[in-house]
């Protein structure tokens, strides 16, 4: 009985909920203070276990990466120049106060709360052979925990190294964008916990408008090098529904500089495979039909 039920379970097709406005995250790294409240809020809401206690020495980042049991991860990047010998012979009269005040700080410590990008066209979802990964009614990429059988193809497909198979149950897991909370009209736990507004949640159109406004604001304040990552589609990748405001190159934060949709060449790959097949077939057929043998 039980076995039979298990057998038929995945084939049921319950009615789909009606679509709702697409939602996402806008993570503004210039506001992140690296408090990791998001990491903890995520684990607490979702009751995820800890990943073990490993002192990495990699700045204050001891969880290192997103995993099947870490769905928010705060990246720390220390950027400090070799200190120079302080100039001697201080002459207060010669001091240019204006220049003094405009002097930028000597180093910086970047922090970014990383998360599943909820890609507009999600390679993991496309790759998933069971249909466990779906685009839900909020246009978020969601793993149906009861469907996934742990084939691992999504892991291979994700260009951001987000989704992972947990050794605990053998299934793939990642940020659900707090699907359960959203259905009850609550913001995701991380966005709720973030004290500074670095993580912003909302309808994706609104977020994009807000992000552009923010960019202008930063520009006006003289923050150089700020840009949006994943805000709009590139030649090789779709827009991200969880996008970021960065102030250094993406790979400094552990993001690919030019993400590429793995299925970009799929049709060609199929054709080249067919070509190879036909070539082999031709060799075989020609040999078999030849009268030399």
């Amino acid at each position, binding site marked *: 009985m039980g076995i039979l039920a298990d057998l038929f379970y995945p084939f049921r097709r319950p009615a789909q909920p009606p679509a709702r406005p697409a939602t996402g995250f806008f993570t503004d790294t210039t506001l992140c203070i690296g408090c990791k409240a998001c990491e903890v809020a995520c684990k607490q809401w979702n009751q995820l276990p800890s990943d073990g206690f490993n002192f990495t020495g990699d700045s204050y980042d001891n969880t290192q990466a997103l995993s099947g049991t870490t769905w928010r991860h705060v990246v720390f990047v220390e950027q400090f120049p070799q200190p120079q010998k302080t100039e001697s012979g201080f002459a207060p009269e010669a001091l240019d106060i204006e220049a003094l005040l405009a002097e930028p700080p000597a180093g910086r410590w970047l922090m970014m709360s990383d998360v599943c990008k909820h890609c507009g066209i999600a390679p993991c979802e496309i790759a998933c052979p069971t249909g466990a990964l779906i685009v839900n009614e909020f246009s978020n990429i969601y793993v149906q925990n009861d469907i996934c059988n742990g084939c691992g193809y999504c892991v291979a497909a994700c260009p*951001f190294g987000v989704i992972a198979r947990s050794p605990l149950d053998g299934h*793939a897991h990642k940020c659900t964008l707090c699907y359960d909370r959203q259905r009850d009209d609550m913001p995701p736990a991380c966005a709720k916990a973030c004290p500074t507004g670095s993580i912003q949640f909302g309808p994706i159109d609104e977020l994009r408008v807000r992000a552009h406004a923010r960019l202008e604001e930063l520009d006006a304040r003289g923050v150089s090098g700020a840009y949006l990552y994943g805000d709009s589609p590139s030649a090789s990748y779709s827009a991200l529904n969880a996008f970021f405001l960065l102030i250094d190159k993406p790979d400094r934060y552990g993001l690919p500089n030019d993400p590429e949709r793995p299925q970009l060449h799929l049709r060609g790959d199929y054709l080249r495979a067919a070509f*190879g097949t036909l070539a082999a077939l031709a060799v075989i057929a020609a040999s078999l039909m030849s009268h030399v043998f």
Partner: protein
Amino acid sequence: MQPRIVTKAPPWHGWVTADLFLLSTASGTFTMAAMVVLLRPWEMDALARAAFLIVFPLMLADLACLILDLGDPARFHHMLRTFKPSSPMSVGVWTISAFSFIAFLAFIAEILDWPQSAIRSIAAAGLVPALVAGAYKGVLFSATAQPGWRRMRWLGGAFAVSSASMGAGLMLALAAGAGQPGAARLFRFIVMWLLVLNALAVRRVMGSTATTGHLSDVGDRRAALRVSLCYTGFIVAGLGVPIVLCAIGGGNSTIDGLTAAIVLGGGLASRQFLVALPHRSAPNRT
């Protein structure tokens, strides 16, 4: 500074290597047998027959590997919920299902000694699934974000040729073993030309991954060198040597056996190399 690799290597290890090997061998062998049955039934009936008897057990073993490799093997049938051409794995699952079924039919047919016409129909029906099964894995790998794999535009083609050559290799061994010099000569010829094709395909695959332009995919310069060496090894030892053996080893069944062993062993080794590639490349970020 090289951009750091951020992708996670998929949790694929030994079971997947075994699956790649078994599936290639099975599909290649079936292809060879089916082609023989369809094109030269008069001559090598017994060989084809032996091949059909081997293919199904190979497929059984392969299915076992496929299932065991899942995170949750009890849910293997969830694969059959959907059919997604966009997912080579989904395509593959359906292909393998069809192919396994036909391999089973062929197996039964040989055991129950079904009429020749039935076997011919089974062979004809199984040819397409067998060919797809032999080739799709390459596409499955190349349509990922993994360092190395994602650049291998010709991997599907390479898999197709490699599967065929492994099948031909097995047939050569069978022919040599069964003391059929005529058939052996034929398969030696096929193996040789398939290997030549194979070398071309590997060259293409290699060209797209091990060049300095794509260093980022395999880590640093040394890793790239290692990868290049591996490729060269495969081409020289795995393909070049058996080609030479085929060319010179006329009539010697030991050499034929050695050839087949190298072809199959090379297939296994190259598949292991392939599976391990992202694990080697991705710097301890799992």
